[in-house]
């Protein structure tokens, strides 16, 4: 413990060297830009700038590249809140309540809460990274396919808490999402499924085109411009900051999101994507006012935003202490370190302490920088909403197209986005909520693959899920949750869902 603090102090000495500070700032700045602009995600941003870092030493390079990574996590919420365009999978949940807040004139508050939530979550993540990285990393390695399967079952159960529409509607949307998620090459057998001989569909349908289409374009299609022409929702300057009440509502979700996100972020694989979904469902489940979700609930912004930032820090745990990537972005960072002659892994702390601790310390500094960078920017970003809607929505459509195209340089993705936009329009007509669809799409391929991988490992024996402690605990939680809802069903105490459905039915049927 004491040695950790000494090492950390040493790290701060490195991070505070003027040029290192400069590279951290540069990374954060580029990251924010990359995050705000649709399409260019952290992955592309880091790859493009990788050759630029050849002239730097390894510490500077990793400080700057990591700055791009977590900087983009801050920036990612901006287009979600202002334009309902989720730039990447982890901002999908933010765009629902964030944009609803913006429509109520609380865009500034939503952006501030997202920035502060990100700061708290990011800092929490780094503190955890400093203190408990090595033991947690070992835990991460034990997270194999069976544990993954159990986690995703939990995710599927949470799905029921995600939406205010009736259970049948939620499940139908989830099925639709899973069906879309089936498209592509089956990784386990090599079959092309439902891909109509298009190689572009081989990797399946991406989350970004679907989410941008359903939420971004779908919203525009179902908002006839003549109805809100001339209506400007930009707030006055003094209304930019969240109110005391909004801060209070945000505090709990930020704390829970930080914890949840960090744990999920450590898991190797694509689990960090579901951290924001889990956080949203959790907040909705325990909220006293679940009916506000989808209509601009502060918790619906604060929770997922914190979870996603904390997860992106958690992802550094297995990367730094084991040298294993938790996702494509950490893989690029490991590659970047290699180019600088450093191999990430258990020896990194001992062999190159100046890189390890300099990097960790720079993350404290970087998070603070990002907060200071993002808060003033809020007023700039909110100014976008001063553009009258009639002029704003062509701009949003352009951003949707460019954003989706740039992710994979694929026009097929843009067509998918357009089709999903029309689908989103139709779903809204028939009173369906598209959020469970996106979760279904995220979970389906992961769930199917990890279930089948587990069965390969056990040679077809389902007891593998009970024999491994982590998987058994996760499944135990699932059973507990299910029996709790079953109990409330039998005791005839209708939960909020039934009441809500009734209230809604009362509203819609004349």
């Amino acid at each position, binding site marked *: 413990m004491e040695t950790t603090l000494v090492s950390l102090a040493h790290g701060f000495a490195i991070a505070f060297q003027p040029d290192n500070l400069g590279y951290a700032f540069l990374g954060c700045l580029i990251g924010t*830009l*990359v995050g705000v*602009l649709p399409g*260019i995600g952290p992955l592309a*941003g880091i790859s*493009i700038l990788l050759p630029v870092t050849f002239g730097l030493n390894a510490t500077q390079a990793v400080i700057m590249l990591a700055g791009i990574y977590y900087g983009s996590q801050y920036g990612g919420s901006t287009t979600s809140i202002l334009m309902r365009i989720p730039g990447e999978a982890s901002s999908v949940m933010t765009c629902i309540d964030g944009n609803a807040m913006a429509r109520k004139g609380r865009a500034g508050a939503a952006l501030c809460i997202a920035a502060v939530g990100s700061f708290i979550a990011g800092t929490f993540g780094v503190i955890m990274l400093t203190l408990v990285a090595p033991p947690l990393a070992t835990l991460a390695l034990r997270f194999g396919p069976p544990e993954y399967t159990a986690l995703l079952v939990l995710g599927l159960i949470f799905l029921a808490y995600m939406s205010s529409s009736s259970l*049948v*509607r939620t*499940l*139908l949307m989830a*099925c*639709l999402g*899973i*069906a879309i998620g*089936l498209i592509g090459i*089956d990784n*386990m*057998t090599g*079959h092309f*499924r*439902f891909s109509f001989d298009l190689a572009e569909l081989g990797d399946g349908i991406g989350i970004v085109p679907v989410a941008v289409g359903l939420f971004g374009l779908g919203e525009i*299609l*179902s*908002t*006839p*411009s*003549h*109805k809100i022409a001339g209506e400007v929702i930009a707030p006055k300057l003094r209304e930019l900051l969240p109110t005391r009440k909004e801060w209070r509502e945000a505090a709990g979700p930020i704390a829970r999101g930080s914890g949840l996100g960090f744990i999920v972020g450590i898991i190797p694989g694509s689990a960090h994507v579901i951290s924001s979904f889990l956080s949203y469902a959790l907040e909705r489940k325990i909220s006293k006012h679940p009916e506000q979700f989808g209509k601009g609930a502060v918790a619906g912004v604060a929770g997922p935003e914190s979870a996603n930032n904390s997860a992106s820090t958690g992802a550094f745990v297995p990367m730094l202490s084991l040298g294993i990537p938790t996702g494509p972005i950490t893989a690029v960072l490991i590659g970047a370190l290699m180019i600088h002659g450093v191999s990430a892994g258990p020896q990194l702390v001992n062999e190159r302490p100046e890189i390890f601790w300099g990097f960790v310390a720079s993350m404290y500094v970087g998070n603070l920088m990002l907060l200071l960078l993002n808060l003033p920017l809020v007023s700039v970003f909110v100014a976008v909403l001063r553009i009258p809607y*009639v*002029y704003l*929505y*062509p*701009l949003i*459509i*352009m951003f949707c*197209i*460019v954003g989706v*195209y*740039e992710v994979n340089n694929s*026009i097929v993705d*843009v*067509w998918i986005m*357009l089709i999903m*936009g029309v689908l989103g*329009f139709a779903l809204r*007509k*028939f*009173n*369906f909520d598209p959020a469970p669809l996106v979760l279904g799409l995220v979970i389906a391929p992961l769930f*199917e693959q990890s*279930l*089948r991988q587990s*069965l*390969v490992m056990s040679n*077809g*024996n*389902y007891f593998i899920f009970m024999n491994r402690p982590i998987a058994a605990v996760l499944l135990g939680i699932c059973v507990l949750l299910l029996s709790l809802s079953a109990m409330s069903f039998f005791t005839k105490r209708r939960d909020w869902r039934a009441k809500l459905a009734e209230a809604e*039915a009362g509203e*819609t*049927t004349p």
Partner: protein
Amino acid sequence: MNVRADHIAGATFVIFGLTIIALSGDLPFGQLSMPGSGFLPMIVSVLTILFGLMLFVTAGESPRFSELSWGDDKHALLVTVITAIAVALYNYLGFVITMAAMMIALLVVIERRNPLRAAAYSLFIVFLTYGIFQYLLNTPLPASPFSY
């Protein structure tokens, strides 16, 4: 006939489920101990049909189909068509031309704005975006045959 919105929606999902089954004809189902690539598609389509039927049966609570408001359909259709044309041309005419034309078309054709103001606004936005991507981020956007 008293057609409700959920009658239409439920029926659509049933048809959708049947379509998945029809399309996955040659995918092996496998066994429970070793699911094949047709396993999940089968489960999902059966569930979709089941839930679709449930929706159909309980459709009485939903609004009448004829009472859904379709006031925005013309606007939505126009936006979709213009966007689709732009997507079709995007890879051939490049970012600058296609996106400027699309924004101008949206503003002039649908919103009946002054063409000059629409053009000025669209070109400003398009060139700003182009500049940021091309020079600041060094990420080329699709180019037209005229190399910009």
